[in-house]
């Protein structure tokens, strides 16, 4: 661990033992890849930026589908949670990178051993997946532009299920790149960022899981949180099946289906026909998938409604009316057109209710994690210093 201290002063040079030789050579290349072709999107700066000191506080939202980072130097970036290593030295030579992330990895997947390390909310059980998480965190810190001399205090938000199952794995993955570290559940960090800390329910719909968290003025415990796996990936699978049934001759894959979902997903009344171009025997054909899209997206609604109702019932009866007005929908799934309204209508059968979609779903988790990082007293960070 003698090298660790030195490495921590420059997280972007830090990499796993297996990749460090090449990563060291391509540290800047990695960064440019991320900016130019990894699908990372530059967003507006966080509203509250503290003066940069020798400590960089970062909030990382490590999601199944997308990961985002917000830092108190004003950087806010996101990347799709894909990590890929070239399959062989020829692929590495062609790609010019020892490791690719996000969109770049996805687009070059045929040349890569591609990993989406968090599936259904947990780190998949393999050394390589743990390594992928580790590289992803390093990449997120690269995107946050940590300076050489800075110390890094990080709050990492992960799906609730991952927090329960993979606490140590996440700690291991992050500890080499930061000086002090805390891990929180994503819905909690989103709630903290929004300052919705009492008498509220947070529904965080991601790709792998839908996480529910009840906020009652104190730190949510395991019993206050739930996770179901009928989330974005489930919709993809449903849509794939329904399209395959309707258009058995057509050629499409899960990646294409995921893109259709991201563009056209809706529940309830459609805005218009959903038509996509799909190859059939080498010819491009237009398919109407309006009904299939609706059925696939609506397949997740019963589980969300059921769990929300159960969580409302867990509150003291006196507060349930307030809670019903404080249901917050966040995560990528919150962007499904009409989802909040459908959930709201279903819950309104039992009384007035309001479901609100978070304004900035991509950065809600990382902004909340950053808010936690900023509010956390220095003493706590000192106590949680990563051992060297």
């Amino acid at each position, binding site marked *: 661990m003698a090298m660790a201290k030195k490495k921590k002063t420059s997280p972007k040079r830090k990499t796993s033992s297996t990749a460090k030789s090449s990563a060291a050579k391509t540290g800047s290349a990695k960064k440019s890849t991320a900016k130019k072709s990894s699908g990372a999107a530059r967003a507006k700066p966080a509203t509250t930026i503290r003066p940069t000191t020798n400590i960089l506080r970062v909030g990382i939202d490590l999601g199944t589908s997308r990961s985002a980072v917000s830092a108190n130097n004003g950087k806010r970036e996101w990347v799709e949670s894909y990590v890929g290593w070239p399959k062989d030295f020829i692929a590495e030579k062609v790609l010019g990178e020892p490791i690719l992330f996000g969109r770049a990895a996805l687009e070059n997947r045929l040349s890569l051993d591609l990993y989406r390390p968090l*599936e*259904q909310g947990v780190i998949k059980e393999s050394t390589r997946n743990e390594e992928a998480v580790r590289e992803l965190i390093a990449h997120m810190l690269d995107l946050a532009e940590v300076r050489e001399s800075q110390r890094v205090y990080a709050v990492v938000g992960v799906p609730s299920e991952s927090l329960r199952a993979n*606490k*140590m794995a996440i*700690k291991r993955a992050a500890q080499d790149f930061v000086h002090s*570290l*805390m*891990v*929180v559940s994503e819905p909690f960090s989103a709630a*903290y960022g*929004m*300052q*919705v*800390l*009492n*008498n*509220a329910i947070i529904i965080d719909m991601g790709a792998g899981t839908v996480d529910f968290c009840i906020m*009652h*003025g*104190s*730190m949510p*415990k395991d*019993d*206050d949180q739930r996770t179901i*796996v*009928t989330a974005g*990936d*489930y919709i*993809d*699978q*449903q849509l794939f*099946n329904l399209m*395959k*049934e309707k258009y058995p001759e057509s050629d499409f894959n899960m990646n294409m289906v995921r893109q259709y979902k991201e563009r056209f997903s809706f529940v309830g009344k459609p805005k218009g026909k959903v038509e996509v171009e799909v190859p059939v025997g080498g010819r491009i054909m237009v398919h109407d998938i309006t009904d299939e899209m609706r059925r696939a997206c609506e397949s997740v609604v*019963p589980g969300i*409604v*059921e769990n929300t*109702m*159960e969580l409302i*019932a*867990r*509150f*003291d*009866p*006196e*507060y349930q009316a*307030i809670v019903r*007005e*404080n249901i*917050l929908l966040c995560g990528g799934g919150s962007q499904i057109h009409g989802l909040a309204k459908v959930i709201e209508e279903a819950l309104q059968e039992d009384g007035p209710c*309001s479901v*609100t979609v978070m*304004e900035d779903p991509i950065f809600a988790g990382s902004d909340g994690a950053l808010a*936690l990082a900023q*509010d*956390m*007293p220095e003493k*706590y960070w000192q*106590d*949680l210093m990563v051992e060297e």
Partner: protein
Amino acid sequence: MLGLTRQAKVPRRNEILKSLYEENLVVAGKRKAQPAAVRRIHASHNNSPRVRRHPSFYFLLMIIAAAVAYSALITFWSLPHRVDQNLSTASAAGGINGNASKLHVASATPVSDPAVLTMDDVIDSVYAQPKPSSPSENATPETINQLKSLVSAEGPSLARLFGLGVHTIVIDPGHGGKDPGAIGHLGSHEAEITLEIAKRLRDRLQVYDNYTVLLTRETDEFLSLSERVAFANDNHADIFVSVHINYYPGDQLNFVETYYFGPNNDRKVAELAAKENADSQYLYAEFKGMVEKIGDTMKFQESRDLADAVQEALYPQIRKVNKKARNHGIKPGPFVVLLGIDAPSILTEVTSLSNKQEEKRLKSPAYRDKIAAFLEKGIVNYLNKTTNSPGGESNGNGEEKENLAQAKDKQYR
């Protein structure tokens, strides 16, 4: 700006930060996890100071609670039979929701044992309502206590209490027709598999002679949820079992789970008690709601018991053949098909079609029959728990059924 009720000042922000810090100390291995009983703060005590008690306190509390519950149970059974007899009469004459006034008049005798008042004490402490000075002709608070004991989701099943039996079992094969349900990687349709399992389950249950067993659909046809509900209600179903197969992304998971009608919210009962204590003039009207509530509670209890029996019979067997099977247990679910049916109802996800190995097995008629046998065992176990099965069967006869079910199991193996 979002329409949320935000807290401009969060009084417990520092506590939240401290809790997060302490949790992370545990993750970092710098502090041992505290016992859950010490860490937990109940949602209803938002503004109360945190009280740390020794775990033995909670153990002692549990013993006291168990003793009180036992005492209440003994007292209830030893009471005059006015309430249960008349409720039984009412239910036999036309269902639980029948003649409220008959129940009201007949149950006016006061109860002397204070143990029965325990539940009321709790409710009174919440509402702090004054006791009525003179209930006079209306039913007494003690009667209400009796009813409250009855509608409690805990304790002995109301169906057993009232000696209600099962005559008609409706089995609902999920999906069908234009709705194939889940489609497996190998192309299997959930609707086709559930239909065959349901048919085999019907054949197995019909062997017992005592039950009319009906299927909501006999062929690959589409039925809306409301049609399924109407079918069950029109045929006076006594229990309703909807058979489904799970589907999860990826092929690794195989969740076995059973949903039952629920959740049950006793808030209405508590409100009724408060109103009754404040002004007895509303008693009669509220009584009707109370009696209706008994119906809901009975359905809830029985649905839960049925779900429990089916899941207990199903999961261990599925697990034997598929090590990846995971028990997701029983849970209340607001499925339309469960809510709309008058009878105790469950929706069971017997296995997962997304699991390739399981899909291969499901192609085999023998495996479908095994699943039917597991469901049969669960249903029979549930029926055996009811003291008054059709024809006034005793527990002894229930054992015979169990033996028969076991014998059939062997035969099908």
